[in-house]
């Protein structure tokens, strides 16, 4: 394996300036030279993969990176082509994008808005990336999306579940493939009703920051619409590691369902604590006490071990899906790395393909061209069935999975089983839905 990574500028300049050393300085502003930020003029195009490599989400970030590398391999014609073969758009030919070899740079978001923006900026300013993608939290996604809008590059959001990403903080240069809090609620509520009945009293524990609030709002609204009551919504500090003092009062509150609006480490700990307290063996109001985790991540669910068994939640994608696209992806990912991909890996793989495809179809890397190609784009074959990138808010609409912690896992990856594939129609909402109100896309910014 001998691959030389050149920066875009490097390639550009070696061609332009031969006989180095004696050339006079040519001074120019970026705007006079290029039509848009980081226009690739050489034989390669650079993408920026900005994922958490340190901090609590590092494993999720590592899985994203694996998927990115796989996507780049496929785009450049390597490997078995993965979902490129099942993708309904056939613009990509395995020769890079528009004949340019796809190159990439990586960075560490540290799951901090500041660090994520610094890393994205270095990709744009130093490495000449035309597209930034990745991330594992909504705060980071929104911060980097704002940056990409200002800098004039495309942002493909990666893992972000907050309504705000395509709600009040939506941006013209940003697209989200992941589902959101509203969709979780819309998909999950009917299943919960079916399983637990419509006469239920819910108690919410919510991570005390924006994502938690939007999910709490979404789930509460969806379940209340089906007849549930919400007895209490309690906010827990982000830094909390021990949730005992929040869980202990639950049994006494008259609630018979506990909804944990937590993600990552918070989710693992609050779920573990709740199960420890024996909540699931209790009877309240004559019913079995139940716990719900609206947003599941298989990687994180592993941290909770046996505690996830029988617990319902929703997820963007799961490797056990049997459609052609998912199978192709699992096969090429599994063959390369030896274990199945996570939903984060799937999301970012799809986004890389979708970006490449949009550029190919638009015939340019100009963000405005790509925005045009992606807006209202309908496709199939990337798992989750028929999918639409809606023009009004750049949210992706596709089937949502309702899953349950598996009772008898056959392997360490086999933790969740898909209970229901909620059809896209059921999770679609109007662009001006109040939970997504405020903010506007603005117009695409090509930078330069």
């Amino acid at each position, binding site marked *: *394996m*001998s*691959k*030389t*990574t*050149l*920066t875009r500028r*490097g*390639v550009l*300049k*070696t061609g332009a*300036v031969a006989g*180095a*050393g004696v*050339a006079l300085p*040519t*001074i*120019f*502003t*970026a705007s006079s030279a290029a039509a848009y930020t980081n226009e690739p003029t050489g034989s390669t195009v650079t993408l920026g993969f900005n994922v958490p*490599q*340190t901090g609590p989400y*590092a494993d999720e*970030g590592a899985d994203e990176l694996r998927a990115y*590398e796989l996507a780049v391999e496929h785009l450049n014609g390597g490997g078995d082509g993965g979902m490129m073969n099942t993708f309904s758009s056939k613009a990509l030919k395995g020769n890079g994008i528009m004949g340019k070899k796809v190159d*990439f740079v*990586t*960075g*560490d978001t540290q799951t*901090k*808005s*500041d*660090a994520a*923006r*610094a*890393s994205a*900026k*270095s990709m744009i*300013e*130093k490495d000449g990336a035309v597209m930034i993608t990745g991330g594992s939290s*909504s*705060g980071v996604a929104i*911060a980097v999306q*704002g*940056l990409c*809008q*200002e800098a004039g590059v495309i942002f493909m959001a990666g893992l972000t579940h907050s309504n705000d990403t395509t709600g009040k*903080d939506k941006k*013209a240069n940003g697209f989200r493939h992941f589902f959101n809090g509203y969709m979780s609620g819309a998909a999950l509520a009917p299943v919960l009703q079916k399983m637990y009945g419509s006469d239920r009293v819910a108690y919410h524990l919510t991570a*005390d*920051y924006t*994502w938690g609030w939007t999910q709490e709002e979404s789930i509460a609204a969806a379940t209340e619409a089906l007849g549930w009551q919400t007895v209490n919504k309690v*906010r827990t*500090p*982000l*830094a909390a590691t021990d949730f005992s003092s929040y869980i202990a009062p639950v049994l006494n509150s008259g609630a018979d369902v506990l909804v944990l609006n937590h993600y990552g480490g918070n989710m693992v700990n609050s779920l573990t604590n709740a199960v420890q307290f024996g909540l699931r063996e209790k009877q309240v109001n004559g019913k079995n006490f139940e716990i719900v985790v609206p947003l599941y991540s298989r990687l994180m669910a592993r941290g909770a071990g046996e505690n996830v068994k029988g617990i319902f939640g929703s997820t963007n994608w799961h490797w056990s899906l049997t459609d052609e696209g998912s199978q192709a992806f699992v096969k090429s990912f599994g063959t390369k790395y030896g274990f199945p991909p996570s939903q984060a890996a799937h999301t970012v793989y799809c986004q890389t393909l979708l970006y490449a495809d949009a550029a190919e179809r638009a015939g340019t890397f100009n963000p405005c061209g790509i925005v045009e190609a992606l807006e209202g784009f309908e496709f199939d074959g990337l798992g989750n069935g028929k999918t639409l990138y809606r023009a009004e808010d750049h949210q992706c609409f596709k089937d949502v999975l309702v899953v349950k912690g598996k009772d008898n896992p056959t392997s360490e990856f086999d933790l969740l089983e898909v209970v229901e594939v909620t059809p896209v129609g059921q999770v679609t909402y109007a662009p001006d839905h109040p939970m997504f109100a405020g*903010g506007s896309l*603005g*117009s695409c*910014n090509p930078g330069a």
Partner: protein
Amino acid sequence: MLGLNKKDMSLLLIVGALALLAPFILNPFPADSAMAQFNAGYPDLMQRFVIFGIFAIGFNILFGLTGYLSFGHAAFLGVGSYSAVWMFKLLSMNVVPAILLSVIVAGLFSLVIGFVSLRRSGIYFSILTLAFAQMSFNLAYSVLTPITNGETGLQLTLNDPRVLGVSQTADGSIPVTNLFGMEMRSTFEMDLGPWLFQFNTGYYLCAILMLLSFYLSVRIFRSPFGMMLRAVKSNQHRMNYTGLNTRPYTLAAFVISGMYAGLAGGLLASMDPLAGAERMQWTASGEVVLMTILGGAGTLLGPILGAGFIKYFENIFSKINDSVLHGWFGFMPDGLEDFIVTIVHPFVGKGWHLTLGLMFMAVVIFLPGGLIEGGQRIGKLFSRKSKKSDGGDAEHHPKQTPHVAE
């Protein structure tokens, strides 16, 4: 000149030259060489170097002079950033009012926290400042979201009610920060052979303010006020019986360094109008402590070096991934190449924290006075050699006399 003695003046000139020529100095490798990965001469990182340099210079005025170890200085940087972004949202995209407000707000904030915290000394003081900063962070992340926009961080939107200026530009985007029309993000690029150099307006604003801050800090170090603070650090007991009311002096140092932090926060927001709560977290406070100690607490130049060192690791080492490594070692036979990559792999990319931790330990163990001491030792080595060889090439080693204030 400028009220400095010759030694300090030359130090200032060196720092000035380094700052102004940074786009060249930090990009020593041709843009297409494998070593280009180590180039740091792009606007964002250069801005961070000088901004965190300002932060560390200010912190050093407190810690280096008085010995009071604040573990909550990030809070001042944070409120500085928030004030600046609010100024952009409400008043104008010009950075001047934003920076002024951030310095003032940080000053007031540090006055309050300093007034309370300075009632205790030693580790009790450290924990008090830590407690205040952590409270600020936790509240900013959650309850104060209407002011701080919580997790996401405060950023500009398309419908900010800007009094002087427009909410959005003609083409529907958010206006950019500027200094009387000069856009902070505009960059001139210069090709020189295979090299590429970037000159960014925002960076030069930061660099000039850093030089000004540095100059002020030299003046403070050399002033009676600075000497009084050093005396407080050396022997507070004696100072009390020497007729000096130490509290207002330490408080003044605290507020000055808080204002430096506010300036740094305001500049961060001016370069990139976003203020995240993480800026106030204890890890951020810890970072400036590490910068200062790593560079050499109590020295003039040390904090700047420390800031550069840590930011360099964070931004450059974290971006080295396996394919970059394979690029570097591609000339080797395949087996050896893979072997070397496997060895280096844990220390770069996602392992940059590990390398940073090892560097901390190495510096503290082998260079108790921080990086500055390393510079001095090298300087001594050279001056000894050059004495033997009859001197002559002193100007080739301009760093040999980094001055230590003692």
